[in-house]
């Protein structure tokens, strides 16, 4: 059974419909990528799955349960976390406070503090900076903080929107190394990445969106080598 199934998703802003029926599926343990040009509606897919934007038509199923239009809180409780596009931290709070807010829906417990330690093992730089203000971190460090925060609830699925946007090449590599590490631990991830070629390299499956509709899909390998996709999106 798929971990996440999205059927014929319609959503938009105001009178404008942006998604005209998106369908996708994520199996447990997979990394699935959504690629497509800017403005295709990739971020909008995430926002409507995660209850931040009303789904107007269609269904979202998560771990076998219908979760269409559930609140973020309910989805977090069911094991889905979301790392939105752009830098998303609480700038005046410390790194550790930011991390702990990732588990806002949970009670403070010894297990939670253990989980924080596990995140520090994955991201040693966060331990080093744990009393620094999140707003003072570099872009790459903030992104690691965001990813660490999304791991804190031990989610079944992470929605990851453009994790390397605006990062320097070296940091970019570091983030991808971390994503591959997560995959080795069996973490399921649905992600959007502007460097599609690199994302497809590590993806089990991929969907190509265009103007709010499914365009192509296939294994990461197949999409990466697809002549049409190459010409249109991979710039090669």
């Amino acid at each position, binding site marked *: 059974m798929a971990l996440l199934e999205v059927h014929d998703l319609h959503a938009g802003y105001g009178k404008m419909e942006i998604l005209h029926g998106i369908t996708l599926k994520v199996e447990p343990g997979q990394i699935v990528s959504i690629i497509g040009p800017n403005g295709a509606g990739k971020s909008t897919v995430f926002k409507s799955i995660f209850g931040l934007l009303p789904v107007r038509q269609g269904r979202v199923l998560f771990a076998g349960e219908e979760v269409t239009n559930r609140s973020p809180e309910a989805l977090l409780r069911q094991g889905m976390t979301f790392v939105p596009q752009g830098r998303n931290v*609480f*700038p005046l709070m410390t790194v550790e406070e930011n991390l702990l807010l990732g588990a806002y829906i949970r009670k403070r417990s010894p297990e939670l503090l253990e989980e924080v330690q596990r995140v520090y093992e994955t991201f040693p730089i966060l331990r080093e900076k744990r009393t620094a203000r999140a707003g003072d971190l570099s872009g790459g460090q903030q992104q690691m903080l965001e990813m660490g925060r999304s791991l804190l609830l031990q989610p079944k699925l992470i929605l990851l929107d453009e994790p390397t946007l605006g990062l320097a090449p070296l940091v970019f590599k570091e983030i991808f190394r971390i994503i591959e590490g997560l995959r080795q631990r069996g973490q399921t991830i649905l992600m959007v990445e502007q460097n599609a070629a690199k994302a497809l390299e590590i993806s089990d499956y991929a969907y190509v969106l265009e103007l709010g509709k499914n365009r192509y899909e296939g294994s990461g390998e197949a999409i990466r080598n697809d002549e049409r996709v190459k010409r249109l999106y991979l710039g090669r």
Partner: protein
Amino acid sequence: MTDVFQLLVAGLSIGSIYAMAAIGFVLLWQTSNTINFAQGEFVVLPAFVMVLFLTVFRFPFAAAFVATVIVSTLLLGLLVKKVLVERLLKMGVLPLVIATIGLSMLIRYSLQQFWTPLALPFPAIFSRQPIRVGGVIFSSEEVMNVLSAAIVIGTLQLLIRRTKLGWAMQAVAQNRDLASVLGINVSRLVGVTFMLNAALTAVAAVLIAPVYLVKYDIGIGIGLKAFYAAIIGGFNQIRGALLGGLLVGLVETYSAAYISNQFRDAFALVILIGVLLLKPEGLLGIKEEWA
């Protein structure tokens, strides 16, 4: 020399009341982007309510105070949030600002029309016995005002720093979208903030009423000074609002005594303009370059 100290306590006394109103003002701004131009009337209305409980219902003082805080919290907190904020916030900051100006007039002139255009006396809460320290005589009422405000503001700070609710408030203030992504119910939190603000202004009301008497239009001055205080101290900092409130109280008291009583209100404005020119983010404010 002795009046310097007396005036210090007098200035801190009125300043700490401005500070409470200013802190509430900043809290509303931070969590809901509401600039509440009715903040002055949020202080006046509870003062009238308190008079009602004391003189009409003949409640003992403590019971009247508790009842006033509850009524204020429900009326100026919950009701205002549900009726005005929830509907208007979606449309941006400006409609809500204008709505709060309307609300301030509604409260002010309803009190004048349907209650009384006259100033109502308010019983002294604290003894007016002077306290003598060394050669200096202080009004014990003023000292108690400062202490009461300090307790209320200190408790609020603890709430914000140490409780989960306070964390959520900080989170919403710093990044509202991210707060929702982490499962914080932003709308409910805005409601709680409005209720906290209304409780703060109710306390300010009860402390200021014996000083100014209870009159429908005293909110104009109080609201303006809370606004000045917030800007002087820094709109995004509670500590800033505290500092700003105390500063406005001190400046107004000293300038009334030493320069001109008639122009007392002008001097806070001079400070305000100075701060805006030299440090526009406020004395303790933080530049919002990350926003």
